[in-house]
C-alpha cells in the first residue's frame, strides 16, 4: 500500500438544478476539480468511481458510470459505479483510495452525483424507502425519517435529549451553510423555526430533516509522493474505515443508540491514521437528521457517550469551538444529493485543511474526519485527511 493524497476537489451548486442533466452535473463538478489541480485533465484519469444511489428511479437512467465516462470523454482502466445508498460517496472514495494505494492506477476521479428533484417529493420519499427492508419495514409504513425518529425516541429514553437541543444542531448547520456559496439553503434559522415546522416523524420536524437535492461533487486522488506536482497544498488520506452490521433493517442492530458499525469504522480509520479523536480539528458528519449528528459525535469519540447534548449546548461544535462539526452546513443546509454527499464531505475537509473556506474557515485546521452512513445507520464509511507537510 502506498500513501494517497487528494489534489483536486469540485462541487456544483446544490439545490434544484432543472437547468442541467445528470451527465452535465457530473461534468460540472469534475471540471471544478480539474481546475483545482495544476494541470491534470480528464485524459489523465486512470480510475473512475461514480457514486450514485438511484439514477434509475430519479432520472430513468441506469448505468451512470458509462454516462460519466461518455460525458467526460475518458476510458479509465479501473472503474465502477458504487451504490451504497446514502454512503455511496464515502464508499466510492474508499475504492478510489484503494485503486491508488494498490498501484493499479496513478490517478483516480471520484464523481458523486444525484438528481432527485425531477420527481415530486412524495415519490422521492418512496424511492428513498427502497433503501429500507421492503418486507419487514417499508411495507409497514416505515420511512427514512421514522427510522431515525425511532432511534431518537430510544436515545431520549436511554440518555435524554430535548427537541430544543436537537433543533440547535439544525440552527448551527444553517448558520454554517449560510456561509457556503453552494449550499441549497443559505439562510439562518432559529430554534423556533425547527420546533414550529411540520412534524414529519415525532420527535423530528421538517427542519430536523435534510432536504431532497440535485448536486454533484468530485475528488481527484494521486499517489502522495507525486501530489505536489498537481497541487501546492496536497491533502493526504491517512485513515479509511468502513463497517456494516449484518442487517438490512434496524431489527438486528446491536444498539439503536451506539452505532456498532460507526464505532468499528472509526476505530479502523483512527488506527490506520495512528491518531485519536482528540487529534481531529474538525468533522464533516452525516446529519441526515439532527439526531444522527448527535450520535455520530459520540460514536466518533468527539465527546463521551451520552454527552452529545452537552456538546450541543456548549457550542464547542461551532466554527471557533473545540471541534467544529459540519462547517459546510452539513446535509441539513448544504443539501443531500445522496450519491454526492460523501464526496462533498471530502471536498469540504480538503478545502478547510488548505485554508480556503473564507467566512466558514476553521482556523489552523490540519487534520479532519468525514463520516458517511447509509440505511438506518447500519453502514458507515469514515475517512481521516491531513494537510501534507
Amino acid at each position, binding site marked *: 500500500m502506498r500513501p494517497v493524497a487528494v489534489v483536486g476537489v469540485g462541487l456544483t451548486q446544490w439545490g434544484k438544478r432543472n437547468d442541467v442533466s445528470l451527465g452535465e452535473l457530473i461534468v460540472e463538478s469534475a471540471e471544478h476539480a480539474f481546475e483545482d489541480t495544476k494541470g491534470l485533465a480528464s485524459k489523465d484519469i486512470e480510475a473512475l468511481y461514480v457514486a450514485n444511489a438511484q439514477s434509475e428511479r430519479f432520472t430513468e437512467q441506469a448505468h451512470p458510470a458509462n454516462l460519466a465516462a461518455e460525458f467526460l470523454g475518458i476510458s479509465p482502466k479501473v472503474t465502477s459505479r458504487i451504490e451504497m445508498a446514502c454512503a455511496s460517496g464515502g464508499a466510492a472514495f474508499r475504492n478510489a483510495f484503494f485503486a491508488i494505494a494498490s498501484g493499479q492506477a496513478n490517478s483516480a476521479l471520484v464523481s458523486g452525483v444525484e438528481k432527485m428533484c425531477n420527481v415530486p417529493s412524495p415519490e422521492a420519499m418512496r424511492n428513498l424507502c427502497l433503501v429500507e427492508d421492503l418486507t*419487514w419495514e417499508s411495507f*409497514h*409504513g416505515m420511512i427514512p425519517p421514522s427510522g431515525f425518529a425511532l432511534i431518537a425516541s*430510544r436515545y431520549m429514553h436511554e440518555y435524554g435529549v430535548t427537541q430544543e437541543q436537537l433543533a440547535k444542531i439544525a440552527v448551527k448547520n444553517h448558520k454554517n451553510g449560510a456561509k457556503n456559496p453552494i449550499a441549497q439553503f443559505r439562510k439562518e434559522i432559529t430554534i423556533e423555526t425547527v420546533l414550529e415546522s411540520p412534524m414529519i416523524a415525532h420527535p423530528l420536524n421538517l427542519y430536523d430533516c435534510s432536504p431532497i437535492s440535485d448536486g454533484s461533487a468530485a475528488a481527484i486522488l494521486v499517489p502522495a509522493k507525486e501530489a505536489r506536482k498537481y497541487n501546492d497544498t496536497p491533502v493526504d488520506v491517512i485513515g479509511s474505515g468502513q463497517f456494516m452490521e449484518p442487517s438490512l*433493517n434496524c431489527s438486528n442492530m446491536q444498539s439503536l443508540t451506539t452505532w456498532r458499525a460507526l464505532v468499528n469504522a472509526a476505530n479502523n480509520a483512527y488506527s490506520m491514521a495512528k491518531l485519536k479523536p482528540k487529534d481531529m480539528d474538525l468533522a464533516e458528519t452525516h446529519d441526515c437528521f439532527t439526531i444522527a449528528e448527535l450520535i455520530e459525535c459520540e460514536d466518533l469519540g468527539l465527546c463521551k457517550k451520552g454527552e452529545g447534548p452537552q456538546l450541543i449546548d456548549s457550542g464547542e461544535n461551532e466554527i471557533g469551538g473545540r471541534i467544529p462539526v459540519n462547517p459546510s452546513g452539513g446535509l441539513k443546509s448544504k443539501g443531500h444529493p445522496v450519491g454526492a454527499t460523501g464526496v462533498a464531505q471530502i471536498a469540504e475537509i480538503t478545502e478547510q485543511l488548505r485554508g480556503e473556506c473564507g467566512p466558514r474557515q476553521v482556523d489552523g485546521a490540519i487534520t479532519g474526519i468525514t463520516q458517511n452512513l447509509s440505511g438506518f445507520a447500519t453502514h458507515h464509511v469514515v475517512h481521516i485527511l491531513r494537510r501534507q507537510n
Partner: protein
Amino acid sequence: MTEQPMNLPYYLVYPESQIKPFWDNLAQNRFTSTKCPNCGVLWPPKSTCPQCGGKVAEWIELKGTGEIYAKTYVGASPPAFKDLLPYIIAIGKLDEGILVVARVENAKFEDLKIGTPIKIKIKKSFGLDSYVFIPA
C-alpha cells in the same frame, strides 16, 4: 386496486422460499419465526443466521406479546400510506427478545411509553397477510 406501498409487492407475493412457512402460518393466524441453535430466536425469520452465519431450520411459535422499545408518530409518508396518516410506528421488543417493526393501532401516541405492554394482532394490510401492534 389498492396502491402497493412500494410498487414492488414481489417479496410478499413470492416470499423467500426458505421462509414461506412464516406466511403460511400467518394465514392461519399464527405468528412464528426461526430459531438459531447458537443465537436464539431471529427476527425477521431467516434460514441463515445474520449473527453467526449458521444454517437455521427450526420454526417456533412466538407468544406475540412484548413492550414498546422505540416509537414514533408519522406525519408525512409516501402516497400509499397517506390514508393512514398520521400513524404510529413502533419497534416492539417481544418476550422472546427480538425487535419487530410494525404500526401500532387502537392507541393514542401520548399514551405509549417505552415499556408499554403491546401485542401482535394479525390482520391484512394492502390485501396481504400482515400484522400490527395493539396495546396489550
